[in-house]
């Protein structure tokens, strides 16, 4: 960590993890209610528990994105954050808003909450994922605008890298499309049409920019691969993501009262949506294979690889599975949708936030990386959470296939509730999967408290310089050219100080602008 103000990310990440735990607890409640219908009824009806489960997910991911932005932007811009104080005020505003909203959901009936919070003035509530009271929606907007102001000013006053440009585009897009949360026409078809401008254009649009930027940042740090190479991959991935994803919105416009041509547009473009995720997988593995140093933070690298693979499976493969209109005709709104939703959100967004937390938290706690013992715990949590989520997804897929068969394809279709009874075995096993996931999460939390032998950050071991770790022997192969900074390093233990250049972006020879370098021993 090179700048003191990057530390504001820490409370954001701690809050994110706290809300993550709460999210999973409510996920377990929801999962239990699928098989024990009257579990916690009438205290916490299903609709309330599910709303808390999904809203907490969005809020903690936003905490993660924000923390990531506050950490990453100063380092990339090579200057302190424009206003750390504003970032801290924003943190408390967001946390209090989020907490009050959840308490509101749990404490009073939803209709009462709507009446109390002025939903009659501007009705925005009661739509999936956009259940928040008007004041919470305004609060989210203000919090995001505050973040944008802070990180945009920081970037404008400092170095502008491709990563910050893409991250900022993603965050500005997030704020822009959030505005459609305030548009709720009386015409249900129009309501649904623009509802997707928040939901789809977030998760299959601008959030992918944020994800790509975070992944690129961590990969530069842990692999030491040249920034020019990583930037190029990042642009290819997000180009593919938006070229396929924007018109891919059409896969939501098949059956909601919109014209039939969306079946063609949606099918064609969303069938291509797995491509950027596949390229992201190639990207992550290729960068790690071509790494120029072995960073001591192994688990951050594992999270980064895991993100790419699981996002490809969840968003790519499971999305493709039901995206073609003739298939979607049967699977729309079934457990197949739930299966896809779980693995896509976990693989793409949960894991990318855990990646950035895994890389930055040790640094913010004064170490290059956590101790091998702590990393071992975190590795266990990685596998427990990831494998159990894959199993949950497979079970929900099984439930979905059976549901579609019994309720929609069969010559003698069963009713919805009769079909649900037939799926009980899948739901029970899914609940077991949820419990294993929760155990993985507990182990994840414990990993933060495992001591062991840590390498502390020192002047010669300055994390953030993109040069931490043991250089690999085959550093200068292929097209990877030595940087000017490295060429100047001629003997051991002499850190090269203050090499900087303004020609970073377009320079034919990649130039690093970091302040401190680890000496290369194999030169």
């Amino acid at each position: 960590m090179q700048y003191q103000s990057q530390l504001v990310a820490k409370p954001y990440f701690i809050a994110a993890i706290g809300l993550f735990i709460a999210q999973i607890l409510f996920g377990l409640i929801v999962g239990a209610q699928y098989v024990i219908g009257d579990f916690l009824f009438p205290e916490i009806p299903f609709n309330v528990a599910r709303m808390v489960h999904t809203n907490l997910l969005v809020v903690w991911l936003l905490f993660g994105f924000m923390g990531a932005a506050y950490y990453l932007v100063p380092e990339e811009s090579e200057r302190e954050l424009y206003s750390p104080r504003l970032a801290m005020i924003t943190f408390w505003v967001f946390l209090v808003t989020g907490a009050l909203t959840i308490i509101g959901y749990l404490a009073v009936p939803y209709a009462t909450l709507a009446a109390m919070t002025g939903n009659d003035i501007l009705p925005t509530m009661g739509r999936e994922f956009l259940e928040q009271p008007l004041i919470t929606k305004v609060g989210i907007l203000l919090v995001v605008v505050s973040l944008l102001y802070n990180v945009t000013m920081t970037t404008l006053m400092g170095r502008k890298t491709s990563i910050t440009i893409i991250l900022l585009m993603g965050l500005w897009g997030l704020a822009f499309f959030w505005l459609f949360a305030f548009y709720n026409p009386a015409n249900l078809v129009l309501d649904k049409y623009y509802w997707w401008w928040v939901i789809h254009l977030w998760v299959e649009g601008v959030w992918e920019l944020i994800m790509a930027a975070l992944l690129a940042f961590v990969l530069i740090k842990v692999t030491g691969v040249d920034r020019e190479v990583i930037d190029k991959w990042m642009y290819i991935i997000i180009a593919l993501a938006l070229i396929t994803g924007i018109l891919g919105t059409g896969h939501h416009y098949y059956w909601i009262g919109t014209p039939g041509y969306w079946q063609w547009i949606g099918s064609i473009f969303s069938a291509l949506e797995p491509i950027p995720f596949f390229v992201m997988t190639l990207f992550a593995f290729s960068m790690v294979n071509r790494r120029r140093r072995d960073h001591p933070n192994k688990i951050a690298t594992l999270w980064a690889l895991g993100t790419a693979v699981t996002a490809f499976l969840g968003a790519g493969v499971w999305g493709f599975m039901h995206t073609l209109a003739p298939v979607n005709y049967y699977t729309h709104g079934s457990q197949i949708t739930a299966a896809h939703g779980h693995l896509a959100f976990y693989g793409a967004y949960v894991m990318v936030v855990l990646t950035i937390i895994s890389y930055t938290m040790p640094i913010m706690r004064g170490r290059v990386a956590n101790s091998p013992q702590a990393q071992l715990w975190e590795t266990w949590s990685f596998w427990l959470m990831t494998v159990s989520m894959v199993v949950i997804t497979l079970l929900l897929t099984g439930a979905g296939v059976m549901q579609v068969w019994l309720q929609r394809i069969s010559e003698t279709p069963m009713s919805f509730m009769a079909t649900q009874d037939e799926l009980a075995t899948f739901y029970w096993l899914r609940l077991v999967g949820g419990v294993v996931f929760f155990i993985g999460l507990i182990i994840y939390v414990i990993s933060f408290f495992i001591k062991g032998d840590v390498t502390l950050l020192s002047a010669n071991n300055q994390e953030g310089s993109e040069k931490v770790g043991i250089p690999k022997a085959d550093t200068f192969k292929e097209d990877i050219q030595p940087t000017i900074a490295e060429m100047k390093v001629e003997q051991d233990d002499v850190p090269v100080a203050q090499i900087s250049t303004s020609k970073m972006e377009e320079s034919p020879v990649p130039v690093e602008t970091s302040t401190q370098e680890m000496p290369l021993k194999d030169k």
Partner: protein
Amino acid sequence: MSSVYFTKSAARNIFFGGSVFFFLLFLVLTFDTTRKLPKSDHRENLTEEVVRGKHVWETNNCVGCHSLLGEGAYFAPELGNVYTRRGEAFIKVWMQAMPTGAPGRRQMPQFNLTDEQLDDLVAFLKWTSEIDTQGWPPNIEG
């Protein structure tokens, strides 16, 4: 990725150019859809009752358990076609009888809707069932 012909700035240009182009195309399609929607959404039947019914639907978070035209939660039956599946009288009696209290069964809360709210809700569900949804759902069970 070492080609000198396919540079980072080429990738960047494809990203910016491609995103802008496809977003504009999306806006054009949105414009076209907006022009064609009145045919499929039968907005001429959006009465005061239907509008109030949508408000009842939203303020009781019905979508937290049910799906409507396939969107929402998948815990309880699809309601986009419930008007055709069950009819007005059934819907009203059903809502007034909740919760069943049957042990171990999924429970629907009692929302204590007034008669007027029930009428509005039914009007909304009737209007929704008449949207041209390209033949979805596959059968009456939703």
